[in-house]
């Protein structure tokens, strides 16, 4: 009886680890998609709304999903405080906090972290294009993450179940 319970728990644990790994990959894709959506929206606001960056932060702080919502609301507050600190510093501070628990990798986090470096253009079209430079990179990451997910998810699940079976045999 105990053996059977042990076998089941071991299998469930290994399968759970596999599921977790697959879900993380899925989460990474969703986070990249959300990041792309946000940058496209930012471009639109710059291009058609001619909104300044603080105005965009205010808007995103109201209409974006978490964790972006809090990050942008926080950034807007900091910019409004106008304590003279430079945008790059404030942006990095807020985005680091926002991306702390995200599944995306460091390279992908850098895309968002370095967004203010593209600011300062004289015309809205050029500015939107500058911000949009990162879109191609994100789209590339999404495509590769999607392909990896499809290929890897079955492998990960199979390996985790096989590992479970291996452990059961080893412990019996």
């Amino acid at each position, binding site marked *: 009886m105990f053996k059977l319970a042990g076998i089941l728990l071991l299998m469930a644990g290994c399968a759970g680890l596999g599921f977790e790994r697959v879900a993380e990959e899925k989460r990474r894709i969703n986070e990249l998609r959300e990041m792309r959506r946000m940058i496209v929206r930012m471009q639109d606001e710059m291009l058609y709304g001619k909104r*300044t960056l*603080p105005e965009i932060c205010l808007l995103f702080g109201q209409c974006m999903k978490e964790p972006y919502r809090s990050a942008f609301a926080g950034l807007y507050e900091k910019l409004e405080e106008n304590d*003279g600190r430079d945008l790059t510093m404030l942006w990095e501070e807020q985005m680091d906090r926002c991306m702390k628990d995200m599944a995306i990798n460091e390279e992908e986090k850098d895309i968002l972290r370095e967004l203010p470096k593209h600011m300062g253009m*004289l015309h809205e079209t050029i500015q939107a294009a500058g911000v949009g430079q990162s879109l191609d990179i994100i789209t590339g990451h999404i495509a590769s993450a999607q392909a990896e997910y499809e290929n890897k998810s079955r492998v990960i699940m199979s390996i985790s179940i096989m590992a479970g079976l291996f452990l059961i045999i080893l412990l019996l």
Partner: protein
Amino acid sequence: MQKEEILHIFPDFMRLTWEKVAEQADRLQEIRLRVNQPVTVLMDHTEYFLSESGELTDRESDARYSREKELEAVLAHVCRYSVYAFADEIRQGFMTIPGGHRIGVAGQVILENGEQVRNIKYIRYLNIRIAHEIKGVSEKALPYLYREGEVLNTLIISPPGCGKTTMLRDLVRSFSEGNIYGKGRNVGLVDERSEIAGSYLGIPQNDIGIRTDVMDACPKREGMMMLIRSMAPDILAVDELGDKEDIEAMHRAIRCGCRVLATIHGFSIEEVRAKAYMKPVMEEKVFDRYMLLGKKNNKCNIIGIYDRERNLCSNLQEFCC
């Protein structure tokens, strides 16, 4: 005006230098930053240099020099890191920041089709003009701008820097809230340069009265018609009539039954009359009152108020400083 309002124009690393000047914010008129040139400050109509320690001095040898990086930092800061959002303003050579302060810019012009100004790059000259909201500045003029409780079509004529916008803002507030000469009226304000209401995120930073609707950052011509259609104002207020199209729009507004309160650059009524687009307006006697502003004893003041026949209708002594 608050000291912070002046300090907020500058990024963090420059604030210490401007601390002492900002303490005298109420007297401050203009700050000029030119690349590799001394920083000059206009205070009480007197020019000073800013020293390295932040003191005002009249000795050029003690002056602090503006550096390229500083100018870029100020520009990025006042544009709220969004220079693109100010492209239209920069193209016109100035932008308005919260509080209604105006920042004039100069640099290398980028042309489109070899004629039109597309943008300005290498902005290396900044002229920060500090707006002062002076409530009650129009009080003495009010009796001449009403007839039987109705506001008269009024044109404010003034040379640059003599308080044209300040006067307009106070009249808008006064007409909107009402006073002993007439009840409060709905005022439509076309604030093309965001100088009068000083709107930030659509909210006026200056007191423009309780019955005032603002069409912010909108060209005068479009703004006047939009306000008439949408807000049915009793009085339409516009700053700086500048061409034939503005005059046509103003005519349409008057035909729609609105009273008009407008300003124009000029040193005298005759000078304004000499402008081709103004001549028909003056001959048709569209305006019931002309208010002429100027400097008396080095102070901005009302020089006189004239009727539609251009006869002096006020007692000049009343406006004397």
